[in-house]
């Protein structure tokens, strides 16, 4: 009796094991054959947003391939390393792009893209990923409203640091109704990044971004 039970267990385990190997095989093969395509697709999506923030006459490198990675949870809102991309003209930096996180969105973190010219003015801010309420807070998407364009041309001195808030909070930035928390999070993340940029400017521009393939 015990012998038969042992045999059944053994057979059942072998069947399960066989299917586990089959499943792992399938998943591994597909993973390995799509990993490069996925990375390329992600870079392509970022690049498509990035090149819209800087006129192509300003730079002559392939921006997406020139980056350094920095780990600054305090400033950039994430425990993960953030890539900072450099736009170069004849080998000299002209602008940089970063993808910091606004950790305090209404429904979780919001990833933004900030472009800054070498003189410290913003070339543009865009939202990359968010989980905010559709219909209410998605006015932060450039396709839905032009609120996010209000950052273009600003800098840490324009408006002055004590006015880097929504109008509602005594600051200089317009808001639309119904999404204060979302917009507040984005303004805060942008101003934090500008402060970070100000205090680490030398480092960000002098550390030469190697071309990463």
């Amino acid at each position, binding site marked *: 009796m015990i012998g038969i039970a042992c045999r*059944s267990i053994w*057979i*059942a385990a072998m*069947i*399960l094991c*066989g*299917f*586990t190997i*089959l*499943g*792992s095989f*399938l*998943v591994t093969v*597909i*993973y390995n054959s*799509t990993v490069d*395509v*996925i990375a390329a*697709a*992600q870079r*392509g*999506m970022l690049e498509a947003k990035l090149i819209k923030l800087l006129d192509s006459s300003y730079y002559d490198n392939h921006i997406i391939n020139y980056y350094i990675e920095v780990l600054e949870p305090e400033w950039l809102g994430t425990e993960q390393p953030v890539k900072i991309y450099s736009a170069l003209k004849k080998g000299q930096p002209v602008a940089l792009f970063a993808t910091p996180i606004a950790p305090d969105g209404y429904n979780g973190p919001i990833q933004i893209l900030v472009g800054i010219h070498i003189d410290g003015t913003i070339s543009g801010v865009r939202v990359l*990923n968010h989980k905010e*309420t*559709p*219909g*209410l807070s998605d006015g932060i998407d450039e396709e839905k409203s032009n609120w996010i364009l209000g950052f273009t041309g600003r800098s840490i001195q324009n408006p002055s640091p004590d006015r880097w808030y929504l109008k509602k909070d005594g600051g200089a930035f317009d808001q639309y109704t119904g999404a204060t928390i979302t917009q507040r999070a984005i303004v805060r993340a942008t101003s934090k990044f500008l402060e970070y940029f100000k205090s680490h400017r030398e480092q960000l521009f002098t550390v030469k971004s190697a071309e990463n393939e």
Partner: protein
Amino acid sequence: MSKTSYQTILRDGLWTRNTGLVTMLGLCPLLAVSNNVVNSFGLGLATTLVLLVSNVTIALMRDLLRPEVRIPVFVILIASVVTTVELVMHAFLPGLYTILGIFIPLIVTNCCVIWRAEVFASRRCNVLASGVDGIATGLGFTFCLVLIGALREVLGQGTLLSHAELLFGDAGKFLTLHLFEGYRGFILAVLPCGAFIGLGCLIAIKNSLDTHSERWM
């Protein structure tokens, strides 16, 4: 058990025991993703693909299965198929993948997949019938998703097929219909409660259609 005709399999999957409207399996992605037609259609197709592949695989492997390890094997197979679909989608439809996000991996826990594996694919001998059953169930789910998606999109934003380019490439952009000029939107339809109300209305419509057709027959 008598042989089921393909016609019956199709009618069952699409209408009589529609996953969304009758058996109510897989409501989580159904309600969460159905805020416009394109999202609905994308998730519907992904689910259909998973159902097809998992049903066919399980029908093929049926003789190797033993009752005691049946469910673990289903779970392994379904999870592998879903992971495959997820990776392929991430690679080739990155825009849509970004929107559907977590709901693709969650197809693993969509009860309708394991339900079909358990009651159909693992019981009947015919591989082809299992494949047809997978497609029928998937299309029934897609049909329900797209209906709710269309309802919520029209009421919520006054458009149909917005972001069609995510599914069909740049050529899809012209498919977007703006039904009302200057429509201000109806937030209730876009929010999750709109999904519940929409689903409730569809179920009511389906039931009343069924009642009427019975009366006439």
